[in-house]
């Protein structure tokens, strides 16, 4: 029972890590990035490739994450630039369709070129006992990655000047512009940050279970669900929703079965959109 809860929380942290990037990009850029899961896959597959080529594991993981970040940078400076020319609904629609197309393209290419590559990291020590419960070290390190990343994100957003600038744009685009905040460069920064976090989430996925080339769309949808349940503009909400849905997911798949679990998660997202469009902890902007 307790081990189920722990598993759920660890999975939930990973979900939050994935979804926070989506939330930030949506809140700031006004674009719902449907290629988000593919960035996680890019990180994982690059890391797996590097490990296969003999690079040691931490370095490979780091390089994988950096490659995801670089892909984010390229994406922001090329395709997304077209979307940023428009405002509001038109930008959303264009961004949605462009990232959907890109997501398909990446999935097609990766599946074609590296059909059998999968990232599955194992650590030298398999299990440790914490408070009488046996926990896998890989799960602990995945959770640590998630916690540290989310914590530093919070500190960055709360404590630094740049973080405050970012939050001001999320709250009021015009007001921030009037205060002299350069939106375009902040947007690029956030896009890259989001991509880096997606990459970390991919590595964490490789630590806990395994990550293969076909999982991009699934990861995107999971992130989308968490982000909508948490409120697509609220970072705290995303964190809470991630942990909640992670626990629900683990319990439901333990007691009910995988397919119905997916349906429960998706229905939760659907109902949240219908009942509280701004998310569980969301606020109207």
């Amino acid at each position, binding site marked *: 029972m307790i081990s189920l809860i722990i598993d759920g929380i660890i999975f939930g942290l990973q979900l939050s890590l994935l979804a926070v990037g989506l939330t930030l990009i949506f809140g700031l850029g006004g674009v*719902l990035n449907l290629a988000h899961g593919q960035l996680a896959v890019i990180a994982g597959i690059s890391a797996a490739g590097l490990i296969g080529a003999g690079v040691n594991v931490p370095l490979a993981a780091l390089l994988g994450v950096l490659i995801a970040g670089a892909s984010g940078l390229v994406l922001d400076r090329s*395709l997304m630039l*077209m979307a940023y020319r428009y405002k509001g*609904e038109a930008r*959303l*629609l*264009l961004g*949605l*369709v*462009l990232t*959907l*197309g*890109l*997501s*398909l*393209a*990446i*999935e*097609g*290419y990766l*599946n*074609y070129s590296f*059909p059998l590559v999968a990232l599955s990291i194992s650590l030298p020590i398999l299990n440790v006992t914490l408070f009488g419960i046996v926990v896998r070290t890989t799960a602990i390190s995945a959770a640590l990655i998630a916690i540290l990343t989310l914590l530093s994100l919070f500190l960055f957003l709360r404590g630094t000047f740049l973080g405050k600038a970012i939050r001001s744009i999320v709250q009021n685009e015009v007001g921030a512009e009037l205060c002299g905040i350069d939106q375009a460069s902040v947007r690029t920064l956030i896009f890259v940050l989001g991509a880096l976090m997606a990459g970390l989430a991919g590595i964490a996925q490789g630590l806990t279970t395994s990550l293969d080339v076909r999982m991009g769309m699934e990861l995107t*949808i999971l992130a*989308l*669900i968490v982000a*909508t349940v948490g409120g697509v503009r609220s970072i705290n909400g995303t964190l809470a929703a991630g942990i909640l849905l992670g626990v629900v997911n683990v319990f439901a798949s333990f007691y009910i*079965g995988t*397919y*119905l679990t*997916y*349906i429960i998660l*998706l*229905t939760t*997202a*659907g109902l949240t*959109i*219908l009942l509280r*469009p701004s998310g569980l902890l969301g606020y109207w902007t």
Partner: protein
Amino acid sequence: MINKRSWPHYGALLIVGLILALIPLATGGSPYYLRLATLMLVYMTYAIAFNIIFGHTKQLFLCLGALAGCSAYLSVVLIRELGLPPVVTMPLGVLFASSLGAFFSYVSVRRGLGGIFVGVITIAFSLVFYNLILGLRVFTHGEDGMRTRGLGFGLLEHVLASYYILLAILLLSLLLYHFLMSSRIGLAFRALSDNEKIAELAGIDVTRYKVFAACIGSALFGIAGASYAQYNGFISPAIFSLVSVDIVVFIMVLLGGMGTLVGPIIGAGVFTIVNEFVRPLGYLNLLVYGAFLVVLFLLFREGLVVTLGKMVKLRIP
């Protein structure tokens, strides 16, 4: 109803009907190409339906395959489990799909969710559908799929006859589209796709028209899906997946031209041929789909019909 401005439309309908009616001759008796042509007719009907939903009322439905699949699966499962005749189950399936579409549209318009959330809700629904089909193995046989038998009385059983039945469905859908667009409803669609707020101010009931468009479009998806299921002799979740229906139909409508009469038909025809070249590439077809989607949406919003019309200085409907 018949006025002078409609003549080009009827002309276009006649030409489309004639060309499509002659295609079985061009296949030279090859069963493979005849099957491909029949599949093309189904996708053309899908494209007309998507054109009504997205092209005219800007509702980005990403559950097209799921709508067609709901109708197909419901009709087939009811035949198998309760022994009802297809004549009863197919309308039930169509009704189900159409009310689902109307529900999504009503909810999103009423709650003022905007285009993006329609996309998110419907993409979530298409995954719910897929997982339900896999999960309810007892009724649906999961990924293995089920065999279907046609309507009885020889309908949708013989390959060539089925082609003409599906062609009739397609032409009726086109006719329906034409009548919709040349009526007040079409006028309202054009107004609200230009600017919803102004349309609302001009006294157009935006909710009603959007829900109506979603309802009609989803019903067409239901009809096409259910009849394809009977014709094909086999259904599986893969036939109605996001990639094999939603993405392809989206590309077809973009390619041909949104909001035009023959655009979706031309788009579906052209892309069926493209798809034949892409098929041997395996997974790389996703790369091609993605590239098509991005390039068409960015640079080719007008579509083939308008572009060709400009080249030959003719207004193609």
